[in-house]
């Protein structure tokens, strides 16, 4: 019992945020329920982003009824690679990534060959709400398949690595690079076995990683070191993330972005309840940083000033960036 109490105190001292605090102090406080559909429905997110001039993967088409499944072939056209997603999917479930065609069939990114009927069934499952939050009827979207930048080749296993930045009221507070593993089936979700690697907000240099709640330094599949990698276009990512606050109106979000080898940084999706493992990846508690941002907001409010995206990014980079590299 005493040990637990000590653990509690130690975690609190380091500012580690627990689920209850995240829900009570951030998600419930900053995220208005009525705005949830904007982030929960990827189609709406995409439309908003396009309207705001933010880069997103190109949308090929939307299927919202069983009847429209017949249009699938038409939507795909001659393209050999594309992604089918549930509009309201959670945790990367129900996503089908087609990398190539093979003798009238399709090859998924993991090398599985599937028929057109199987794709249609997948779309049908999406429509019935199998993958949506709460099991409601859903829509399926077919979009551009992101081809990750070569920089990730050595520290990633299949799939598309993405960058998650947690943004509080437009201030990015913590960032992490998510690398798919063999265990995660090419998905970039930590609870499915992907690796999270902390990123220095100022420089875009990767820190150490977390895998299944443990701290790691090497990718389990490629055994290449995950730390000390310079992410390109880092300031671009930061500004993209900071701008998402204006895009959706939610105060506490996780912004998921990818680096396409041709189109550069793209926004994949927004998350109104971002996970907490990012803290392990960064070896840092969220609460200290969010409190610093909240103090800054109070200060600005008192002075009647609002900051632009650039100013906000500069503030957080000054405040939380330039973490000295750790030995080991």
């Amino acid at each position, binding site marked *: 019992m005493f040990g637990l109490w000590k653990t509690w105190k130690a975690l609190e001292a380091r500012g580690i945020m627990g689920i209850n*605090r995240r829900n009570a102090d951030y998600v419930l406080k900053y995220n208005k329920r009525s705005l949830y559909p904007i982030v929960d429905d990827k189609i709406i997110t995409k439309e908003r982003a396009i309207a705001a001039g933010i880069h997103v993967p190109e949308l090929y088409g939307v299927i919202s009824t069983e009847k429209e499944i017949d249009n699938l072939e038409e939507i795909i056209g001659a393209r050999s690679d594309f992604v089918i997603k549930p509009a309201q999917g959670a945790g990367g479930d129900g996503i089908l990534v087609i990398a190539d065609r093979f003798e009238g069939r399709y090859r998924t990114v993991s090398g599985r060959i599937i028929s057109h009927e199987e794709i249609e069934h997948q779309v049908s499952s999406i429509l019935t709400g199998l993958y949506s939050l709460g099991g409601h009827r859903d829509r399926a979207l077919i979009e551009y398949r992101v081809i990750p930048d070569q920089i990730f080749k050595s520290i990633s296993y299949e799939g598309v690595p993405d960058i998650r930045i947690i943004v509080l009221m437009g201030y990015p507070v913590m960032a992490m690079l998510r690398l798919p593993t063999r265990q995660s089936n090419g998905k970039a979700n930590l609870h499915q076995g992907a690796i999270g690697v902390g990123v220095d907000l100022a420089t875009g240099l990767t820190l150490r990683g977390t895998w299944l709640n443990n701290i790691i330094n090497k990718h389990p599949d490629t055994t290449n070191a995950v730390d000390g990698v310079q992410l390109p276009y880092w300031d671009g990512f930061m500004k993209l993330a900071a701008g998402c606050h204006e895009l959706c109106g939610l105060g506490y979000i996780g912004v998921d972005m990818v680096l396409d080898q041709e189109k550069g940084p793209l926004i994949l999706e927004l998350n109104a309840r971002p996970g907490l493992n990012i803290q392990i990846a960064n070896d840092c508690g969220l609460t200290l940083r969010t409190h610093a941002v909240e103090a800054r907001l109070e200060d600005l409010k008192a002075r009647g000033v609002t900051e632009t995206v650039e100013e906000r990014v500069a503030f957080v980079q000054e405040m939380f960036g330039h973490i000295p590299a750790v030995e080991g």
Partner: protein
Amino acid sequence: MRSLTLHLKLLIAILVVLGISVTAYQIFVLGIPVTEDATDDLWNIDAKVEFVASAKDPVKIQMFVPPLSRDFVSLNESFISNNYGVAVNRVDGNRKVTWSARRAKGNQTLYYRLVLTKRYSGEKAKIKGPTFRDSMTIEGPEKIAAEALLAPIRQHSADVETFVGEAIKRVNNPNDDNVKLLLAGDPSAAHKAKIVELLLSIAHVPIEKVHTIRLVADQPQMPELWLRSFNGTDWLYFNPETGEQGLPTDRLLWWSGDENLITVDGGKKANVTFSLNNSEMNAIRLAKLTDENTDANFLEYSLYGLPLQTQQTFMIMVMIPIGVLVILILRNLIGIQTLGTFTPVLIALAFRETQLGFGIMLFTIITALGLSLRSYLEHLKLQMLPRLSVVLTFVVVLIAAISLFSHKLGLERGLSVALFPMVILTMTIERLSITWEERGGGHAMKVAIGTLFAASLAHLIMTVPELVYFVFTFPAILLILVGFMLAMGRYRGYRLTELVRFKAFLKKADA
């Protein structure tokens, strides 16, 4: 934000204070018992009267029934007799029932049934009794023997109480020649009582015979003879065999006096047999039953005012918040993952019908089979609704099969599966399989075990009889519960499992 916190604190305070004060009012002012333990014995006494009626004469049977004056309260009294007229009248502190019929033939059976319980409070009515009586007249050697007996009794006694006790002891000494003479070869209890009465009458001490029934279940018995004497304020009871004073609490006074229990005109071979059994009853319900005899109607506006059937439903319903509270604590404080919030509570409710051990077994088996069926259906690429229907049907068939097998094996348990658990089972299977697909088998197992654990714990707590009674009797407790839940709504500390989850931070700090 701050005003919201104050608002919340105020709301919590109001709810808790309201809950506590209503409960305290019920306990201290209305005097409702806090535990169900305060049960009372309820006695069911049947007196069966059998006799053979003579064909020609009208029949009239008179039997004493308990006067129920002091220590007992009657809840129900009935005279079961087909064609007989019934009349009850009081004679000298006794009550007598008279059954009468113009014509009856052959063996006749009449019943008298009394349901009673001990009266536990209330003022005792003033009682009156004789304190003086004239001597009975005796002559010759009996007189000498009686006086010879009385002399040492007088010496060894101080008051009426010890006098009577001493007299009874003397009469019960078979070696005393004076006693032998007075008994005249008839040492029956009735005769001894008569001698005692004779002796005491010489000393002008009145004595009365009382006939009692012992409140003991399932034992054949006949009315037991006791003697009593009035000391000016109270009746003193004496055992005619030993002279011991004081009537045991399990004796019910049936009638007093010299008369027989039953007198039959126009019949013969009259016989009365007594059979008793007892049952326990919740003090509350008893209070409600005796309510008609008393002024207390404090239960009028409680859940006890509902019809019995509805009460039973409510007994389950008021426990649902308790179950939800358990899940809330398990999820938000401990951090156990469960399938949704209310599924564990529903499963806990289902356990009511199946019992815990069997319920867990049943759930595990059916869920495992259901999941394997669902994973097979997955290959067929069916849509959600048809797939769900197939799973539901399969669950029904499975439950039917299990019920049949267990019935054939003589296990009645299997039949306890009702409609309600079946729907919950199907839901659980569907949700579990979705979790399986989304998060993988390991996570699904974790969730399933978490759900089963939470459900078992909720079930155990929801069926603690003391708790059920308490919440049902003092529903204001639920307000306190709501207060706690509201407070939990703004709890932002760690969950117990998070301490383990974030252990990685501490390892580094130590190194």
